[in-house]
C-alpha cells in the first residue's frame, strides 16, 4: 500500500458514498443489536427493495454505536449526496425503533418526510457537549468495511508514520500529546512507549488489552465493535514506534461481536497490505493475532494477561520486572488499553499538540465514559478532560430519572470509589479524582440516587473482587472473603462496632500487602464510601442510627442488587 493507493481508495469510496441520495444508518453495536437492530436493518433493506422505484437512492447500512444506548435501537437517516453537493441536508435520528417501525421509516426516508413520534432530537447537550476523538467514526462508518474507514481518513496516520516519520518522530508526537493510559492507571503513554523502544531485544511485542471487565463499563466494547480498524492502525503505529513486529489483542470471550469484527478487520487489513511484511515498501513487518480471555477479571492485570496469552494460568506475578523490559515470552512488551491505542491514529494525523490543547494541565485529550445506573441518558459519551461531573450528570446525562435526587457517582469500577453530591463541581481528571478517593479507571460511571444503600454498594464491589481474586496471594484471597463477610453482616444490620474496626484494619492490610492491582485496590469502594457515607455504616450497626438521623436506605435482596447497579 502506497500513500497514493490509499488516497485513491478513499476517494473512490467517498465517490460511491456521495452517490447515495438517502442513507438509513442502523446501529449494529451490541446494545442495539440486543434489541434486534440487525433484524430491523434486514427488514429495512428488503422493504426498500420491494418498494422498487419508489425507494430509489435509498441505502440501508449498519454502523457502529451512536452512544445513546438507553434510547436504542437507534437509526439515523442522512443524505450524503446533498451533503457532498453542499446543500442543506438535515439528519434525522430515530429512537426506540422496533420491527414495526422499519417499513414506515424506509417509506418516510424515500418520500423525504420523517416519522415524527420516533424522532430523537440531536440538538440536546448529550450530543453537543461531547468531543469525539476516539469515537469520531462511531456511528458514521460501517465497522465491517475497511473502505469506509479509509474514506474517513483511516490508515492515513499509519501510512504517514511509515513513509514520512521516523520511530522517534512518532514517539515525540505521542509524548508531547500528554496522552496517559486510559485503562485506569494513567501512566504517561509516551514514557511507556519510549521505555520499550529503548530496550535492546531481538523481538518485542505489542499487546492490546481488551479484557474490559469492570461492572457497568462498556467503552472498549463499543470502540472494538464500531471502529475495529482504529485499533489495528493504533497498534501498528505503536509497533513501528517501539520496534515490535508482532502483536496480540487480548479480548474477552464475552464480546463475540467485537471478536468477529476484529477478525474480519485483520483479514481486510492483510488483504490491503496494511498488515504483513514490508508495509508501505519499508522494511517494517507487523502482524496481529487475537487471543481470547476465558472469563477472569484478573487477566486485565498486565502480568496475568501475559501469562494467559502464553497459555499459562492467568495469575499476576510480582513487578518489577515490568513488562516493558520483561514481558510476553520474556521479551520487552508494550501493553496498552483499547482506548489508548484508539487515540494514536488521531494523534499522528493531527499532531501531538492538537491533543495537548484539549483537557487540563496534567490530563490531556478526551475520555470515553459509559454512563450507567440511575441516569436518563444511559450510554457512551466522550468528553474533554477537565469537564465537571455536574456537566456529565446533569447536562449530558440529563439528570436522575423519575424525579430522583442524585446521591453519588461511582467511577473506576471495583478499583474506584464514590463521589458524593457536594463534589459534583470537581473537574474530571486523573489527579482530582484521586484526591477525591477514587480513580479515573477505565471509564465506567455508575450514577446512584438516594435509594441506594452505600454499604450495599461497597458489598457489591467486594463480592465482585472476592469472586475474581485469583487466589495467589494471601491478603487478597483471604482478605476479600473476610471483608465480604463483614459487609454482609453490616447489610444484615448484625454487625458491631468491633466488626467495623476490623473492616477498616483489613482494608489497610489488603491494600498494602496484595500482590497486584486487583487486591491493592479492592478496598477502595469500602474506603471511599466510609469516607463520605460513614453515617450509613454507623446506621447499619446493631441498634445504630445514622449521624443526621436520616434513615439508611434499605438493602435490596441479594438477587436484585447487582442488577440495579449494573444496568
Amino acid at each position, binding site marked *: 500500500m502506497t500513500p497514493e493507493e490509499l488516497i485513491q481508495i478513499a476517494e473512490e469510496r467517498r465517490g460511491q458514498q456521495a452517490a447515495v441520495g438517502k442513507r438509513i444508518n442502523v446501529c449494529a453495536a451490541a446494545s442495539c443489536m440486543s434489541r434486534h437492530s440487525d433484524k430491523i436493518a434486514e427488514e429495512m433493506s428488503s422493504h426498500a427493495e420491494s418498494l422498487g422505484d419508489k425507494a430509489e437512492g435509498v441505502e440501508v447500512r449498519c454502523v457502529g454505536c451512536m452512544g445513546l444506548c438507553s434510547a436504542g435501537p437507534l437509526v439515523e437517516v442522512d443524505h450524503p449526496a446533498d451533503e457532498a453537493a453542499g446543500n442543506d441536508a438535515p439528519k434525522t435520528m430515530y429512537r426506540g425503533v422496533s420491527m414495526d417501525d422499519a417499513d414506515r421509516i424506509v417509506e418516510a426516508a424515500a418520500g423525504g418526510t420523517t416519522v415524527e413520534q420516533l424522532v430523537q432530537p440531536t440538538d440536546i447537550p448529550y450530543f453537543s457537549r461531547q468531543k469525539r476523538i476516539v469515537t469520531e467514526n462511531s456511528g458514521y462508518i460501517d465497522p465491517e468495511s475497511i473502505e469506509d474507514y479509509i474514506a474517513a481518513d483511516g490508515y492515513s496516520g499509519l501510512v504517514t508514520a511509515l513513509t514520512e516519520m521516523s520511530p522517534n518522530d512518532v514517539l515525540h508526537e505521542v509524548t508531547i500529546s500528554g496522552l496517559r493510559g486510559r485503562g485506569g492507571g494513567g501512566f504517561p503513554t509516551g514514557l511507556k512507549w519510549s521505555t520499550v523502544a529503548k530496550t535492546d531485544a531481538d523481538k518485542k511485542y505489542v499487546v492490546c488489552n481488551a479484557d474490559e471487565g469492570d461492572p457497568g463499563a462498556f467503552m472498549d466494547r463499543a470502540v472494538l465493535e464500531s471502529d475495529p480498524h482504529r485499533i489495528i492502525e493504533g497498534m501498528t503505529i505503536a509497533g513501528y514506534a517501539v520496534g515490535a513486529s508482532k502483536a496480540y489483542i487480548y479480548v474477552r470471550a464475552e464480546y463475540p461481536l467485537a471478536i468477529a469484527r476484529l477478525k474480519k478487520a485483520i483479514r481486510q487489513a492483510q488483504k490491503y497490505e496494511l498488515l504483513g511484511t514490508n508495509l508501505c515498501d519499508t522494511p517494517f513487518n507487523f502482524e496481529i493475532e487475537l487471543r481470547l480471555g476465558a472469563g*477472569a477479571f484478573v487477566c486485565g492485570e498486565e502480568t496475568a494477561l501475559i501469562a494467559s496469552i502464553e497459555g499459562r494460568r492467568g495469575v499476576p506475578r510480582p513487578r518489577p*520486572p515490568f513488562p516493558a523490559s520483561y514481558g510476553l515470552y520474556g521479551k520487552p512488551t508494550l501493553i496498552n488499553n483499547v482506548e489508548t491505542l484508539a487515540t494514536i491514529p488521531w494523534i499522528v494525523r493531527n499532531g501531538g499538540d492538537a491533543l495537548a490543547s484539549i483537557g487540563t494541565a496534567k490530563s490531556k485529550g478526551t475520555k470515553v465514559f459509559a454512563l450507567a445506573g440511575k441516569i436518563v441518558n444511559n450510554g457512551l459519551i466522550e468528553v474533554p478532560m477537565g469537564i465537571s461531573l455536574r456537566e456529565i450528570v446533569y447536562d449530558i446525562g440529563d439528570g436522575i430519572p423519575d424525579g430522583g435526587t442524585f446521591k453519588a457517582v461511582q467511577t473506576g469500577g471495583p478499583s474506584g470509589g464514590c463521589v458524593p453530591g457536594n463534589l459534583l463541581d470537581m473537574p474530571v481528571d486523573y489527579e482530582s479524582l484521586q484526591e477525591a478517593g477514587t480513580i479515573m479507571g477505565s471509564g465506567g460511571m455508575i450514577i446512584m440516587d438516594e435509594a441506594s444503600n452505600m454499604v450495599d454498594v461497597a458489598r457489591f464491589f467486594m463480592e465482585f473482587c472476592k469472586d475474581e481474586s485469583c487466589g495467589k496471594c*494471601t491478603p487478597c484471597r483471604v482478605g476479600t472473603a*473476610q471483608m465480604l463477610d463483614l459487609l454482609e453482616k453490616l447489610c444484615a444490620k448484625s454487625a458491631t462496632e468491633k466488626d467495623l474496626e476490623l473492616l477498616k484494619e483489613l482494608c489497610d492490610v489488603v491494600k498494602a500487602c496484595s500482590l497486584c492491582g486487583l487486591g491493592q485496590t479492592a478496598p477502595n469502594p469500602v474506603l471511599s464510601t466510609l469516607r463520605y457515607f460513614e453515617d450509613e455504616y454507623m446506621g447499619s450497626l446493631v441498634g445504630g442510627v445514622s449521624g443526621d438521623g436520616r434513615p439508611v436506605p434499605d438493602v435490596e435482596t441479594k438477587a436484585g442488587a447487582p442488577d440495579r447497579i449494573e444496568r
Partner: protein
Amino acid sequence: MARQKLPPTQTLTMKIDDVDVTAKPGQTIKDVARDHDIIIPGLCYLDGLSIWGGCRLCLVEVEGMNKLLASCSTEVAEGMVVHTDSPKLRAYRKVVIEMLFAERNHVCSVCVSNGGCELQDMAVELGVDHVHLPYMDPDVNLDSSNDRFRLDHNRCIMCTRCVRVCGEIEGAFTKGIGGRGIDVRIINDLNMPWGESQTCTSCGKCVHVCPTGALVEKGTAAAEMDKRRAFLPYLTIMREAQR
C-alpha cells in the same frame, strides 16, 4: 577515537536495616539480607524452586517506593535502602499469618506436623498469640487415595511449593492449581483423586517441601511427621554442577 566503554558493574552497595552491605547485581533483597544474617520471614519461597511471591510475608519497605515489595522477587539496586522489620511490617505480617490460620482448619494439636510446621514456627516467631479474625471454618476435604501420601486441604496455605517441585524438579507436573479466590485448591492432574493419577511418580518431593501438614506420609500420628527439606538445595546444586 572510539569512546571507551565503561566496565560492567561487579558489585554494589546498599543498606538493609541500617547495615551497610554489599551485593552482586541480580541478587534479590532476600538473598542479600540472608548473606548478612538478616532473615526475612516467608512461606512460599524455598531455595531451589522458582519464585512465587504469593505469601506476602517477605514484604519489605524500600525507601523511595510507595509500595511494599516482596523481597524474594525484587532485585537489589545500587544505593537501595531497605527496612525489613519496621513496626508496620511486623503488624502486617501478623495479620497475614492470622489470615492463613483463619482461612482453613488448622488444628495443631491433632496435626501430624505439629512441632515440625513452618506456619506454626512463623506464628511463634512473629508473636501471633491469638487470631482476631473470624475463623472461616470451610468445609474442606482430604485426599487419601494415594498409597503412601495424604493431601489434607484443611492444612494447605497455597504456597504452591508442591506444584513447583513437581513440575520443576521431578518433571511430573502432577500437582496443579484448581479454582480461584478463596476456593483455590491444589489438584492432581485434571482434578482427580491422587491415587488415580497416571503422572505421579510417588517420589514424595511434594511432601517434603510442604511447609505444613497438608502433604504428609501415611502412617504418621500427631506430631510424627518430620520433613527433610534440606534435600532440595542439595539436589539443585548437584544438578547445576552436573550441567
